[in-house]
């Protein structure tokens, strides 16, 4: 079937779920937000939300950086940068 993915036509397997689409595209679900026909699909719905022929899908990547230079680990030494 054909869908519109990020504004461009794309052929994908029939009867696929949102999660299946991400797997098909080798995209890690944790790194993106998904819109199906201009509605946001919540993470817990990825495995049940069906993608239909003609659907419009937007996949938007998380982007966190403001390009500061002097980031440092947080006080707990986890790998989240906490400089602003």
């Amino acid at each position, binding site marked *: 079937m054909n869908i519109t993915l990020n504004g461009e036509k794309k052929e994908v397997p029939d009867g696929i779920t949102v999660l299946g689409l991400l797997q098909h595209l080798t995209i890690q679900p944790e790194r993106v937000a998904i819109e199906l026909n201009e509605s946001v699909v*919540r993470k817990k719905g990825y495995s049940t939300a069906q993608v239909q022929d003609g659907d419009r899908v937007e996949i938007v990547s998380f982007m966190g*950086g403001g390009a500061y230079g*002097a*980031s440092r680990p947080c006080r707990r030494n*986890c790998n989240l*940068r906490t400089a602003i």
Partner: protein
Amino acid sequence: MSLRPAVRNLESAIENHDMDFTEDQILRYSRHILLPEVGGEGQEKLLQAKVVLVGAGGLGSPVGYYLAAAGVGTIGVIDNDRVEISNLQRQIAHHTGRLGVDKADSAKETYETLNPDVRVVTHKERLTSANIKGIIKDYDIVVDGSDNFPTRYLVNDACVMMKKRLVSAAVFRFEGQVTTIVPGEGPCYRCLFEVPPPPGMVPSCQEAGILGVVTGVIGTIQATEVVKLILEIGGTLMGSLLLWNALDMSFRRVKVPRNPDCPVCGQHPTITELIDYEQFCSMSH
């Protein structure tokens, strides 16, 4: 082209409004005042506006620069870092002579030197759930150019709770994203990105690199949004996320609907208190 008609237009734009501009101000802002959409009234709005920048880095630098040039009267700068040499490839508010100086002080010097009408208020603190409301309460508009998810979510949630307009942006390698959040009217950051990605899942610019000019383009788009919000002209990025790719030189605008189930701005919010860095961090331990 003769200058005379322009001067007449300028005089009539000023005369139509009861403003107390100095001669220097009339000259400094003449190209604004000449625009019918701005005029003397709009310039007065800019001079009265109070905008706070979260960060004086890659994004905050150009935002502050253009807002200062535009005559935004009060600019807050929240940053507790110092200028390092690796910043100078993109953080244009600073320069080599300011290495080791607090970024907030460096930005203040730059912006106030550009335009003496501007008062820059420095906040040399790391934003936390304890201090953010006290800092942003005095401003009309918040500009987020932070480089990490804990701050990004903290700023979004605080702006929703305090009904502060927010222009949020992020950059990565050759790409950037920008959106404008008007609490109560349009979606918030969590409407699209409900919860932060697991720690380590999304690399930072420090790890992945960033083309310096990308911060300039995206920061300048943020500044444009701020100026339009102040002037109440045109359309903003409320309800959409603008994506830009420098390599393709392509823009994509993704419509973002309000999410009725949004945990912070939805019909039944589950997040009613600010979530702190430490709690975010501890989620990974």
